[in-house]
C-alpha cells in the first residue's frame, strides 16, 4: 500500500442554487480542486451522490460529470451510500491510489435538492431508512432521529434546551465560512422558540436541505513530499455498517457502526482519540452529534451533550466540531457532505481556516454517516512536514 495525500480541494457555496444544476455544481467544485492541485488530467473520477435520480431525474453521474468536465474517456462511476455517499466516493478513490491502480484521482460529492418540493425532498431522504418497515409507517428521517433524541433525554435526564450548544457552535462557526449556507447567529432564546418538526426535534436541531458540490484530488504522498508545501496524508479510511432500521439494533442509543469505523481508523492511523485536534462530525441533527462524540470515544455514554454544555466543542475547546459550520450551518447537500467535511479538515490542517482556525491543528478526523447510522465512514488526515 502507498501513502495517499490530498493535493487539491474545491467547493461551491452551499445554498439554493437556482441557476445551477448537478453538472455546473460539480464542474465548479472539481475545477477549483484541480486548479488547487495543479493537475490537468486524472486517472479516475468517483462521484458521491445520493438522490440525483429521485430529485432531478438524472442518474449515471460518473459519465455525465466526466463528459461535462472535459474528462471524456476517464474511468468514472457514481457511488451511493445514502448521506454517506461523499465519504464512500473518497474511500474508493483512496483504495485506488493506495492500491496502486491509479495515481491521480478526482473525488466529487454533489447534490441538487432544491428542484423538488419540501414533501418530495422529505420523502426522498427517507429512502436512506427501511422502506418497508420504517418509511411505510409514515416515518420521516427527522422522526427517526426524534425517536433517538426522546429516548436519550429519557435515559440520561437531559432537557430539550441542553442540546442548544451544538446548534449555537455550528452557527457561530458558519458565520466565518464564506461557503456556508447560513451566516446567522443562533441564541438560546431562538433555539427554544424554533418550530417543531418532529417532537422533540425542532427546526434549529435540523440541518437544511441544500445544493452544493465539493471535490478533492488524491495522489501518492511521495509525489508531493519535499515540494515545500505541507503534505496532507490520509492516515486512515474505514467503513463500517449496522442495521438499516433503528428497531433492529441491539441498543439504539449506541451507534455501533460509528464506533467500529472510528476505532478501525484509530488503529490504521496508530493514534487514539486524545490525539485528534478537530472532529468534523455528522451533525445532521443535534442528537447525531451527541451520539457520534460518544461512539468515537470523545465522551462516555450519555455524556455527549454534557461535552457540548461544558463548551468543549468550540474551536477553543478540547474537541472542536463543526469548525466551518457543520451540516447544520454550512448546510447538508447529502451526497456532497462527506467531501465537504474532508475539504474543511484540509483547510484546518493547512492553516487556512481563517477566524475558525484550530490552533496548531495537525490531526483531523471526518465522520460521514449514511442513514440513521447504518453506513459510517471515518477518515483521519494528518499533516506531515
Amino acid at each position, binding site marked *: 500500500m502507498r501513502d495517499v495525500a490530498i493535493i487539491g480541494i474545491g467547493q461551491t457555496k452551499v445554498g439554493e442554487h437556482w441557476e445551477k444544476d448537478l453538472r455546473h455544481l460539480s464542474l465548479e467544485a472539481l475545477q477549483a480542486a484541480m486548479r488547487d492541485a495543479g493537475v490537468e488530467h486524472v486517472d479516475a473520477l468517483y462521484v458521491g451522490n445520493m438522490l440525483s435520480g429521485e430529485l432531478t431525474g438524472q442518474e449515471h453521474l460518473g459519465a455525465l460529470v466526466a463528459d461535462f468536465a472535459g474528462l471524456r474517456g476517464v474511468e468514472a462511476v457514481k457511488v451511493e451510500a445514502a448521506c454517506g455517499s461523499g465519504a464512500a466516493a473518497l474511500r474508493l478513490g483512496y483504495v485506488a491510489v493506495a492500491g496502486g491502480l491509479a495515481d491521480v484521482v478526482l473525488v466529487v460529492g454533489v447534490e441538487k435538492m432544491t428542484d423538488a*418540493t*419540501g*414533501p*418530495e425532498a*422529505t*420523502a426522498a431522504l*427517507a429512502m436512506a431508512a*427501511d422502506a*418497508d*418497515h*420504517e*418509511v*411505510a*409507517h*409514515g*416515518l*420521516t428521517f*427527522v*422522526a427517526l432521529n*426524534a*425517536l*433517538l433524541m*426522546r*429516548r436519550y433525554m*429519557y435515559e440520561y435526564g437531559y432537557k430539550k434546551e441542553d442540546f442548544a450548544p451544538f446548534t449555537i457552535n455550528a452557527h457561530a462557526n458558519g458565520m466565518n465560512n464564506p461557503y456556508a449556507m447560513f451566516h446567522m447567529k443562533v441564541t438560546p432564546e431562538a433555539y427554544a422558540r424554533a418550530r*417543531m*418538526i*418532529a*417532537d*422533540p*426535534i425542532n427546526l434549529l436541531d435540523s440541518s437544511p436541505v441544500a445544493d452544493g458540490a465539493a471535490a478533492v484530488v488524491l495522489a501518492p504522498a511521495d509525489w508531493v513530499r519535499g515540494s515545500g508545501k505541507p503534505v496532507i496524508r490520509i492516515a486512515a479510511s474505514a467503513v463500517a455498517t449496522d*442495521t438499516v*432500521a*433503528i*428497531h*433492529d439494533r441491539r441498543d*439504539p442509543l449506541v451507534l455501533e457502526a460509528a464506533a467500529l469505523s472510528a476505532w478501525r481508523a484509530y488503529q490504521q492511523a496508530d493514534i487514539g482519540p486524545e490525539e485528534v485536534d478537530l472532529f468534523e462530525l455528522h451533525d445532521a441533527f443535534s442528537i447525531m452529534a451527541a451520539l457520534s462524540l460518544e461512539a468515537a470515544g470523545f465522551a462516555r455514554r450519555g455524556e455527549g451533550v454534557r461535552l457540548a454544555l461544558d463548551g468543549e466543542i468550540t474551536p477553543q475547546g478540547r474537541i472542536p466540531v463543526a469548525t466551518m459550520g457543520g451540516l447544520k450551518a454550512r448546510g447538508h447537500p447529502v451526497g456532497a457532505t462527506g467531501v465537504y467535511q474532508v475539504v474543511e479538515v484540509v483547510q484546518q490542517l493547512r492553516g487556512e481556516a481563517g477566524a475558525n482556525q484550530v490552533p496548531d491543528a495537525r490531526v483531523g478526523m471526518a465522520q460521514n454517516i449514511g442513514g440513521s447510522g447504518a453506513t459510517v465512514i471515518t477518515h483521519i488526515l494528518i499533516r506531515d512536514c
Partner: protein
Amino acid sequence: MSLPSKNWRLRNQRYRLVGEICEKCGAAIFPPRDVCPECEAPAQTPYVFSGRGEVYSYSTVYHPPAGFEKYAPYTVALVRLEEGPMLTAQLTDVAPEEVHIGMPVEMVTRQIQTDGDEGVIAYGYKFRPRMG
C-alpha cells in the same frame, strides 16, 4: 399509482404480525429476515407475535413526507414487543400528550396509507393503548 404486489407480499407481517423463530437459539424475529440476527443461523419458521408490547420511544410528526399529508400530525413509536424484538409503527386512538415511554400498547389493523383517490389502500399494524 403503484401496483399492489408489495402490500400483498407483506400481508402476513402487516396484517397478522407473523415473524419468524430461530430453531437454533430460540430468538423471536420481527420483521422476518430469514437469517437469525442473534446467532446467524437460517431462520424461516413462521411465528405469530401476540401484538402486545410497550413504547420504547415516540415522536409526533408535524412535517409529513409526500403521501402522508392528510394524516399529519400523527404519532410514531418504537414499540418493544413482549417477545423481545422492536418495531416501528404509528400509534392510534391516543392523544400525543398522553403517550409516554413504557406505555403498554397492543396491535390493531388500520389503514396506513392510501395511493390517491383511486389507488390501493394499504392496511397494516398500528398500536393503541392496551385495553385491560
